[in-house]
């Protein structure tokens, strides 16, 4: 369970101050597919970054399974991210010169996993995502859809409880976008929590819960 209490995020100071999040209080149950929607600049990505411990809150608290992540020291937070969260971004953020295998196993290297074990885990995921023939190819030789699948494999490789996806289909064609959405749905069925930020209403409707953000506040929560 992820619990946000009166979370605020303010950028800038004085008159140039911008309230990206303005008192968000929210409970996200485990094992659900959550979509966050809203207009550009509404604060949906900021909210995702807060949940994923990628950004600091200005005020308020965020708890995951009873652990307050908003006041964890930097190195503990890094460890928390490594073990509990998988990230999927619109821009992929892969190491272009590294191979598919090297990119996928990166979180396991950071976790200090043995080589044989991490190769086995990464290999299984690469196979599952249909990239076996690309395993030893450099990422910069892959298509957008393939890169996003590498990114999903990297997010899943440490078997995290939470997957955060920020516009994962934004750079993909219809076919690849559908494949990614199906994969996310499949991940939820395995008991993981997936939080998706999207502009796409059709994608949002595939989620169990849709949260709409407007001017940094929750406008409505729709459960299916």
């Amino acid at each position, binding site marked *: 369970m992820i619990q946000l209490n009166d979370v605020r995020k303010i950028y800038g100071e004085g008159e140039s101050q911008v309230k990206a999040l303005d008192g968000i209080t929210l409970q996200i149950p485990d094992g659900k597919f959550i979509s966050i929607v809203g207009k550009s600049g509404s604060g949906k990505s900021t909210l995702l*970054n807060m949940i994923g411990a*990628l950004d*600091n809150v200005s005020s308020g608290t965020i708890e995951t399974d009873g652990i307050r992540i908003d006041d964890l020291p*930097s190195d503990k937070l890094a460890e928390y991210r490594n073990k509990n969260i998988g990230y999927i971004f619109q821009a992929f*953020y892969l190491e272009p*010169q*590294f191979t598919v295998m090297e990119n996928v196993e*990166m*979180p396991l*290297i950071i976790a200090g996993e043995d080589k044989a074990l991490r190769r086995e885990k990464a290999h299984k995921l690469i196979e599952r995502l249909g990239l076996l023939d690309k395993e030893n190819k450099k990422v910069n030789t892959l298509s957008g859809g393939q890169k996003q699948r590498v990114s999903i494999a990297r997010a899943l490789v440490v078997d995290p409880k939470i997957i955060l996806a920020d516009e994962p289909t934004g750079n993909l064609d219809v076919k690849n976008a559908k494949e990614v959405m199906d994969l996310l749905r499949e991940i939820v069925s395995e008991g993981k929590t997936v939080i998706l930020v999207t502009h796409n209403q059709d994608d949002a409707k595939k989620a169990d819960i849709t949260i709409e953000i407007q001017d940094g506040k929750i406008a409505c929560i729709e459960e299916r």
Partner: protein
Amino acid sequence: MKFFDLCKLSFKNLFYNFYRSIASIVMLTLLSVIIIFFGGIMKTLNGDIQKNLIDQTEKYGMDMSMIMSEKQNTQEFIELMDEQGLFDTYTMSLYMGVGAFGNVAEAEDETKFRLHPMCMGKENASYTPKLLQGHTWSEDCKGKKYIWIDEETALSTDKKVGDILKFSFNNQNFEYEIRGIISSSSCLLEYTFFDFEGYGVDVTLYQKNLDKVDMDFFKRLEDIDKYLISKYNLQTNAISGSSYNYYLSAMTIKKWATGIGIFLIAVCIGCSIGSILNTIKINISKNNYSLGMMRAIGAKSSEIYWYIVLQWLIIIFIATLIAGIIVAIMTATIMYDIMPMMLRLIFGDIILITTPQISYWAILINIFVLFATIMLSSLVLLRKYTQKPVINILQGGE
């Protein structure tokens, strides 16, 4: 993260960013070549000056002369040098009236003769000429018109004890009574006349013990000389002698070469530090999302730090290795010709046999300075960087 994996990851990143790594290696290699090269020149000069001095001592013996005036305390000078073990033998020559080294072409009634006052040697009797006739030199002789000549001169000029020796020098006429005749076989010095009224002592030191021959030897000698000059408030005569003259010119070379070398090394170290700082800054800003992603998936600040530093350590290692090889090749080939040419060009005609060498200290200093620069600059640059929210690093924002 395991340290071995971190090393592998750094090495991979270095290899994958091949052109950027090559550019850094080339830059640091060039600067390292200069640092190691001039380190080698300084080592060579230092070592060779010492070696040449020992060679010269083996060949000719170490000798230094101090011509002292009447007022100076010769005994004190000898004692001071004896205390410091600056010599193992010495000769002391007394000047009476007029007299100095060399052959006497201007003598009125003699074309060539030897004027030989008493020579006293410490632990070396051969330096004391054997008296054949007349009187030994004594303190009573000071200032008197006495002179000692050698047997050969006495025979060739038909002079004997008690005769008057007349000669002119610098338009002055001199008369001396021959007080004694000494053996020619033990006469070691030739004298010429010079315009010197009164009385003086010339002390020549001989040091054959090679272990004691070093630059410090001369330094201590100079200190004694300064001490005596200041004590007696005299404008006395400088230390001279072939070894001492060699030492002076060698010291001039050493000072200049060290000065130029240190200046160039300092400039190169400055350039290295500047380039490393700048390149690290560029690398970090160009690798925003790469480092940000590592942070996002769980890398700690210290792991990011070592990830950057290790890449640079490899670059430094390769650059220093290549620079060392280049300098070694230069040292073994062209430096044998270039170095004497450089010395002649800067210092003119000078006797210094050089054997170019590589300075291992320069290599170590080069590595140390570059390592320290990288460690510190990475620490400063990354400290602020890794404390930013991960999303800011990832998106390259503030």
